[in-house]
């Protein structure tokens, strides 16, 4: 790949030709704000928060859509750039609800982060407040379109990555909003509740219903793990607070690129189902009675030994599981085989 020489914030860099300014800056560890950009989606160039100053150019180009060119001299935080970003934020605040105190997005909201970064407290513009009713009809996520900044990422994610195509821009001007074909609640659309739109919304317009008021983003532990459902093996972060799962975020850097389906994204609440078995049970006279581990394991060991002594090891069989870990499958077959039988299988055939 051919290279070009550019300078960003005084730093001379050699980067791949064909990169955008944003990509070149990110590769050099320079953070440029973005709202509407997502590396795997088509470039919209819609929000303009990512503008930079390029020596010799009259306007401030959007860094997410502008390719680098030989000899380009770029400033990402110049006075002019900051001023432009401030006015974009002020425009957004003209009709954005001042709800950060209780908004679930606080701490992971780009609007909040950039307002802090550029010290934007309020808007000089007196906008008419939007008053779109909350879409609260499904158990997966809220849609509070009054908070939407129209970056369009949810739409592109839904069309380009999922393929469900459940949502799109509708109406024009001040009335523009992201909605379903007939402006119906999302559950009546082709939405499959993958939640991928929720996880890339830069603001609090799309909020998962699980884990409400159970922890700010900086208060939760994020534990990387692998989905317990299908064989795709998506990885994601479980958000944990006070020994409870309160949410999930995708692992955008993982082999599955952070794509998820509804099961992995929202289907973890079985973990604290009241139906969970809590203690060993032994059947006595046709009824299960609670037992200690000691009692239960002693009984199993005694019975297995008895059956082996009386009928031989091949009168014992074990069915392992495609749900449990490798380590557990390994130990289970080791257990059966150590008892003297190869009668071990699992339900992969089913």
């Amino acid at each position, binding site marked *: 790949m051919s290279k070009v020489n550019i300078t960003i914030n005084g730093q001379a860099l050699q980067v791949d030709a064909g990169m955008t300014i944003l990509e070149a800056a990110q590769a050099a560890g320079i953070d440029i704000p973005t709202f509407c950009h997502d590396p795997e989606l088509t470039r919209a160039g819609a929000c303009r928060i990512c503008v930079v100053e390029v020596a010799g150019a009259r306007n401030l180009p959007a860094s997410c859509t502008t390719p680098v060119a030989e000899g380009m001299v770029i400033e990402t935080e110049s006075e002019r750039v900051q001023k432009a970003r401030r006015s974009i934020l002020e425009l957004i605040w003209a009709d954005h609800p001042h709800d950060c105190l209780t908004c679930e997005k606080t701490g992971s909201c780009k609007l909040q982060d950039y307002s802090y970064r550029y010290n934007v407290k309020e808007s000089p513009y007196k906008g008419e407040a939007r008053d779109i009713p909350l879409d609260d009809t499904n*158990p997966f996520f809220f849609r509070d379109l009054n908070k939407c900044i129209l970056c369009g990422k949810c739409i592109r994610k839904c069309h380009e990555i999922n393929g469900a195509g459940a949502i799109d821009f509708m109406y024009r001007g001040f009335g523009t909003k992201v909605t379903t074909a007939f402006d119906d609640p999302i559950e009546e659309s082709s939405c499959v509740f993958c939640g991928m739109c929720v996880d890339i919304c830069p603001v609090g317009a799309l909020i998962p219903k699980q884990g409400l008021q159970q922890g700010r983003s900086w208060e939760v532990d994020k534990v990387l793990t692998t989905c317990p459902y299908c064989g795709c093996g998506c990885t994601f972060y479980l958000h944990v607070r006070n020994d409870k799962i309160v949410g999930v975020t995708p692992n955008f850097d993982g082999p*599955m690129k952070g794509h*998820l389906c*509804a099961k992995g994204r929202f289907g973890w609440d079985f973990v604290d189902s009241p*139906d*969970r078995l809590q203690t060993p049970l032994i059947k006595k006279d046709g009824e299960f009675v609670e037992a200690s*581990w000691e009692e239960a394991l002693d009984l199993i060991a005694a019975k297995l030994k008895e059956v082996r002594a009386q009928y031989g090891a091949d009168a014992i069989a074990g069915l392992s599981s495609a749900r449990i870990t490798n380590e557990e499958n390994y130990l289970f077959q080791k257990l059966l085989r150590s008892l003297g039988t190869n009668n071990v299988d699992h339900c992969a055939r*089913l």
Partner: protein
Amino acid sequence: MAGLATAFGSGAMTNTIDDIEKTEVIFVIGSNTTENHPVIGYRIKQAVKKGAKLIVADPRYIELCDYADVHLQIKPGTNVALLNAMAHVIIKEGLADEEFIRERTENYAALRVTARDYTPEYAAEITGVPAEDIVRAARLYGAAEAAMIFYTMGITQHTTGTDNVLAVANLALLTGNVGKPGSGVNPLRGQNNVQGACDMGALPDVFTGYQPVTDESVRAKFAKAWGVELSGKVGLTVTDMFTAAGAKKIRAMYIVGENPYLSDPDSAHVRQCMDTLDFLVVQDIFMTETAQYADVVLPAVTWAEKEGTFVNTERRVQKVNQALRPRGNAKADWQIFVELANKLDFDWNYTCAEDIFKEITALTPSYAGITYDRLGANGIQWPCPGADHPGTPILHVGKFSKGFGHFSAVEHQDSAELPDADYPFILTTGRILHHYHTGTMTRRSKPLRFVQDEEFMQINPLDAKALGVTECDIVKVSSRRGSVKTRLKITDSVPPGVVFMTFHFKETAANLLTNPQTCPTAKIPELKACAVNIEKI
């Protein structure tokens, strides 16, 4: 699995999910990918939008058909005829990769002989697919520089399951679509750790990494490492275990994390067999239908409460990390096994999952180079034979695991149970997007339950009209083995004469109906086709 191991020497997915972006043609047969493997479904749809061609062979009109260049709507159980006819066209039109066949395969002559009779017209009679569509599919697949095949249970859950897989493998060998990027034969694994359970030797004939129990030197290696004597007699498969239990040959059974009462075909029979046992242990997170039959139930923890590894469908070993403390008195399955082993007088001293993993890698050549540290955030695809080996995204590069790729001559055979006057419909079973397996987890998830919490058997509008039933009506579905009542969804995604049910809902347990007849080689039951009758009630 058995089929693919015969053809290539390994039963696993040959290529990787990322390869979907590199291929020209995707051939999906017997896999409702967007419902069962959603993120792989996304990738396939994305690839098509970027120009890849898509062939779908499925009795139902599935979502991927919207994206397909050709939909081969075959009658259930006619895969071999279709695949042989595609081979026929590829050979006849000179689309075969002669050099690949010469250098890397064996037994090609046998396929040539068999394929000769499978003209598209002949296959059209058997499959119900127009001959010109078969030709079109064959040309697309045959002419591509690189083409990938994906399949799942729609191929394997037939009495001819192994033959189906061999016929799929034939196509890939014929066109040189093995061992290079964007190609391969790719069985998609249904459950999170099916691949791992197989890799770990939770199979009656092999230890870890598919090392045969019948091989004396392998047995000696494990016997020495474990300090026990080992049997060289191949064990029973799951379906044979239940029959053996019914015949009192198996007296004690230990079932971990599975619900065969709902997932096995002909559950009434399974239930009888379980009743006959002297002693049954079930270890699970919930009181499943199967656990009800147990003498002892042991409470295990969920994946969020323990550490370990899973292997995904593309052979990627990935970490599972503990996020929560065990609930109640429940314990991790591995801890339970360790405690029980010590009561059985084996001296097991594992203190954590990693101790176990180290023993696995020491005894398993294809895992030898993997450590927890190396797994990091992205995992490693086996085979990974050494500490500095990066893992293997594509199998059979330059050479098949078994030396030469093996062609097999396979003939079409009817399903074990065809529709007749008493049972005029074919029932086919599968999964839907928002549920999983027997529903023990997904039906206990509030949001997922909301999407759907009962069965809606799919039936074609013409059949519905003939039966005088309408949307959401309840009907009685019966097979030779049992009957269930279910609501209906009228949709032309199933062709006339075919109905579709899931096995997620215990109230409408589809496996009371299904046929336990198995494929003689792979011992996989024919869950994808059985004859049923439908009555309005």
